[in-house]
């Protein structure tokens, strides 16, 4: 479910807010920063898609995190606290921790990108880019509607092959499906091209666009606020990265304001959702 609160603003506002979180999540290779961003992403996911859905994602996220954590010592035998010696590999605590942070970073980046996709749908993307590249956005829009059609047809072709015993066990079945779908789609594209021409495709060089959202003052205020949040968080991350070291010994936590500024950004999307929820509960 897309959180309705974000629809109140021009899509550029949530794009800056959550896009900023995505970029910082990619850069922040530091245990506290990564943890803050991971928790923020998990919370947002749980609030928007339900706790169950968020937990079910952990089913593949945790093993991924663990895997990266365990693989890292194989590649970098750095550090000062020897934990174990496995065959020729020396496993240091620092190296394990680095791997764990990397794994957490990857998971949090993926989750923030998912959050971005949730808030900025196809429509919002069009609103933001449509003016600059109408043909490209049209191509995207066309693809987005053709993929489900192709999948539906693939299911129909496969079903009709499975339903005929005589067609079973034919080696070329898979290429047959692809071939059938391709011919079908090509044939359709002729009619689609006609339908485009009939509606004046190519009539002018300058296509206009139907923009369903105007950029208002309120959006500008929100945009400045979001940009400030992102900038402050970026400064915090930069400070944290400059003081922190993994090797040879993990040390150098940043001053607390750095973590605070990042937390503000990381929890802002969840905050918006919660506030909206509370406002609704007050409605008679």
């Amino acid at each position, binding site marked *: 479910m897309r959180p309705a609160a974000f629809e109140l603003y021009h899509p550029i506002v949530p794009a800056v807010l959550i896009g900023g979180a995505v970029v910082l999540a990619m850069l922040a290779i530091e245990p506290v920063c990564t943890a803050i961003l991971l928790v923020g992403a998990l919370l947002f996911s749980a609030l928007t898609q339900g706790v169950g859905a968020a937990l079910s994602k952990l089913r593949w996220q945790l093993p991924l995190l663990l895997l990266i954590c365990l693989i890292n010592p194989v590649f970098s035998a750095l550090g000062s606290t020897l934990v174990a010696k496995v065959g020729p590999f020396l496993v240091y605590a620092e190296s394990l921790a680095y791997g764990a942070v990397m794994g957490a970073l990857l998971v949090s980046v993926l989750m923030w990108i998912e959050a971005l996709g949730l808030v900025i749908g196809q429509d919002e993307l069009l609103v933001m880019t449509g003016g600059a590249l109408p043909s490209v956005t049209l191509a995207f*829009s066309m693809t987005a509607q053709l993929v489900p059609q192709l999948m539906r047809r693939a299911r129909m072709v496969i079903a*009709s092959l*499975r339903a005929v015993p005589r067609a079973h066990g034919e080696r070329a079945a898979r290429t047959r499906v692809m071939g*059938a779908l391709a011919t079908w789609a090509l044939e359709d594209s002729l009619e689609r091209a006609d*339908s485009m021409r009939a*509606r004046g495709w190519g*009539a002018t060089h300058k296509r206009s666009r139907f923009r369903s959202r105007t950029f208002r003052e309120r959006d500008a205020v929100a945009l400045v606020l979001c940009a400030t949040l992102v900038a402050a968080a970026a400064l915090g991350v930069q400070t944290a990265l400059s003081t922190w070291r993994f090797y040879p010994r993990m040390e150098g936590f940043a001053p607390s304001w750095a973590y605070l500024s990042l937390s503000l950004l990381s929890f802002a999307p969840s905050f918006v959702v919660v506030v909206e929820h509370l406002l609704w509960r007050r409605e008679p």
Partner: protein
Amino acid sequence: MSEMTVAPAVEVSGLTFSYPAALAGGDDAPVLDGVSLQVPEGAFALLGGGTGSGKTTLLRLLKPEVSPAGERSGSVRLFGRDANALSTAESASLVGYVFQSPDNQIVCDTVWHELAFGLENLGTDEREMRLRIAETCQFLGIEPWFRKHTHELSGGQRQMLALASVLAMRPRLLLLDEPTSQLDPLAEKDFLALLFRINRELGVTVIVATHRPEPMVPYATCAFMLQDGRVSEASLAKVGESPASAAAPTLPVAPALDAKRALSLDDVWFRYSRNDDWVLRGCDLAVRAGEVRALMGGNGSGKSTLLMLAAGVDRPRRGRVSRPLAQAQALLPQSPRALLACETVEEELSEWVPKGKGQAPVETALERLGLADARLRHPYDLSIGQQQLLALEKLLITHPQLLLLDEPTKGLDAKARASVIQRVHEAALGGVTVVVATHDVGFVREACHSVSLLFDGQMVLTSAVDEFLARSWIYGSGR
């Protein structure tokens, strides 16, 4: 000035057209031969004629952007202006064209973007665009799904969207090529009712090409028939008559009540995924060997799903499906194209010939289809009716004992439909069990022993066809 005669919306005079000989397969007879007709502004005109009579060709020649290439002479004037002298932009905003397939003419992935597509192409000012789209949506009542994705819409809704996206450009003339042939009867009525309002309330001239004009006659003001490349004005009363049914049906007597079961479903529950609703909710079905059973029910009542389960393509989440004829079954999907994958008609028929039978069944099938001379043509170059019959023939060559058909008469003209009925009769005579999902009451009357009515995922009623029609309130009274 007021004495000036009003130019008709469409004035065709002496229009002759033939496709390049190579495309027509060497046949250089003109598709249209000196066609002349006039459609006054504000008319609702029907353009009738069988498959291949040139309806589509004529309709496309009225709209230069989609006109076929070929040899042509004569003139086409729209509202007093030469059609070929119109610019693309003028033509787009003067003449709207709606195509047959609900799937193929949608371009964008959201309803609002599809509605805006034509206006964007013309570079229409944003405020003007919003006004037109708002009014179009209001007029057609499509506000509830304005923000939906186009792939989420039903076939009827997609066709309505195609109409709306043309209408947003405020055309004075609407051309529609078999616009309802892919829709179920209910969606067809909704679509025609809208078309009627557009014609009467907005004064838009409408021309509909169709091989089945009966449902449109109440709305029409004039009708033309195309035959052998010539056009003639026909009376609406005559066009509205249901076509006389072909030779008396020769359906064999229904098998005895205690005949062996050829297919049975027992308390079957099914849904496509965990988050979906149940499609079938405790559905029972028992079909006797040699029986021709029709499955009726509204859109989304689960008819196609039931066929998939009967074919063993999907498995029930609960309940039992017993399929004693699983090794000798065949399924004709809703679109025959799902079965057609070869380069020529002949290869298509040869693909599933039982081993050791040689070429003989293929020759018989070609003969029966009347395609012996067209054996090297690509299946996609055949008419929709011929594609459907080809797909059916391809299945029958495998000698199925259980034939599952999903809307086999949808979109077919009278001739192809009669052929499908004929083939079902022959199959039944040969002892084949047939289960048909269909909306076509005429087909049920002529080709089936019994009917099962599906509603809300359950069987409401199963009875013999005569009894069903006698009891039914909506199907019994006519058609």
